[in-house]
């Protein structure tokens, strides 16, 4: 395949093994070396091809046990870059070891920022919202199944493609990070999530009116929304008035009291 032209023949075969091992990147996450043990273990099949001598290999693995941290799905990109640079180090390229250390330090920040923005701030809330609202509307397990398929299609896809892209790009990995795909995917997820939040608002209001008891139910719903919004409002330097989970608990208790006092019938 043309896209593989940049990959060395020795490493092409281990690409999938590295991607598969990257799923355990955080297995030994700790406050000192962060994801380093998982990172070193994931690139080990590649290092075996580059460094047939076990002693030299152990030295390189030891160097990667210092410290590493990035978004877990994006880290495979750093693994690909590392293997490419390890090849250069093994060939004796001047300054390659120092360049790799510097590059990895820089990548930690970029991969964390891009990955967190895409996966944790945009895709997960958007998909979670859509799945939760769909589950409440349909009472079916399908939203959960679609959620899993959509998430893993993107996340594990990035993992697998990351090793290849990182290896192909090597020190020029900035090119991959500047790809408009990352910002576009975050924007698309934010829009989809906002739409799903709107569906929740509209459906919740309608459920309250239809199932909860005419306009009294609707009023209760919008007071609930207002209370939850107020609880998340920033107050001075101390941040939010109340955590979302505690605010939700307060709202459920309030609704339970109304439900109880009205003897099971909504006002």
């Amino acid at each position, binding site marked *: 395949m043309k896209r593989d032209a940049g990959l060395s023949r020795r490493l092409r075969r281990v690409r999938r093994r590295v991607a598969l091992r990257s*799923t*355990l990147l*955080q*297995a*030994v*996450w*700790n*406050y*000192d070396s962060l994801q380093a043990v*998982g990172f*070193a273990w994931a690139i*080990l099949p590649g290092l075996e091809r580059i460094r047939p001598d*076990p002693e030299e290999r*152990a030295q390189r*693995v*030891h160097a990667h*046990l210092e410290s590493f941290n990035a978004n877990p799905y994006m880290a495979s990109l750093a693994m690909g870059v590392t293997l490419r640079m390890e090849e250069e180090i093994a060939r004796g390229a001047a300054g390659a070891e120092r360049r790799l250390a510097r590059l990895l330090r820089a990548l930690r920040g970029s991969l*964390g920022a891009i990955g*967190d923005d895409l996966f*944790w*701030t945009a895709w997960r809330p958007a998909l979670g919202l859509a799945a*939760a*609202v769909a*589950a409440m*509307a*349909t009472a079916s397990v399908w939203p*959960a199944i679609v959620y*899993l398929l959509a*998430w*893993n299609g993107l*996340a594990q896809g990035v993992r697998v493609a990351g090793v290849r892209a990182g290896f192909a790009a090597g020190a020029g990995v900035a090119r991959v990070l500047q790809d408009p795909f990352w910002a576009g995917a975050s924007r698309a997820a*934010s829009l*989809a*999530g906002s*739409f*799903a939040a*709107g569906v*929740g*608002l*509209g*459906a*919740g*209001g*309608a*459920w*309250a009116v239809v199932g*909860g008891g005419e306009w009294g139910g609707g009023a*209760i*719903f919008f007071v*609930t929304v207002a209370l*939850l*919004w107020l609880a998340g409002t920033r107050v001075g330097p101390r941040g939010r008035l109340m955590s*979302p989970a505690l605010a*939700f*608990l307060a709202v*459920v208790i309030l*609704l339970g*009291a109304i*439900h109880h006092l009205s003897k*099971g019938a909504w006002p």
Partner: protein
Amino acid sequence: MTVAEAGLLIALGAVVFLDQWPAVQAMVSRPVVVGPIVGWILNAPGDGVLWGAVIETMQLAVQPVGAARYPDAALAGLLGTTAAMTGIQGAAYPAGWAVAVAVTAGWGGDAVGRMQRRWNGGTAAAVRSRVAQGSLGAPGRGIAVALSRGATLGAAQTAVGLAIVLAGGRLLAGTPWAGPLDADGVRIAAAAMAAVGGARVLGFGRRRAAALVLGTLAGVALVTWGGAA
């Protein structure tokens, strides 16, 4: 709850502990997925789907950015759904109790997760010193140790949580202190949480505000004409 059901829930606790951060992160640990699995184990999939969705809306604003501390959504989903399903009286769920369990389980699970990360520090140091002596199998063994410890912690915290959920559920059964609420009330509260949580996390730009308005119209249409009542 039978012994077999409790055993399956404890095994699920081990799996979701690992999925949450140490392994794969396939999001099997999210409440919206854990809820239906708990529902399937306890023979009421519909209740599991509803409560998984409810607890998912509570956890929307939680983002594991960097090395931030965050509540254990998996344990919250598992125990919260179990509390709602095992304490149901007629048409009313013990909603206040279930949400309180989910909130507390989130905090408790976070404390256990931090303990695991501290223990991992010892494992990582041991791996480093063995690799320095030339052992290339040390990282793999370190990972196996950390995963086994994680699975054990996940199972243990679920077992302790289940005991508390069952005991508390029995004490509160039939009393107004359980915060009894029917499915309509639960759905209304969760829809409000979804709307507020989503808008807060994703923010408001011009396009996002337009998407929110369009979604609101779609939501009203879905319930009024789409048969989602």
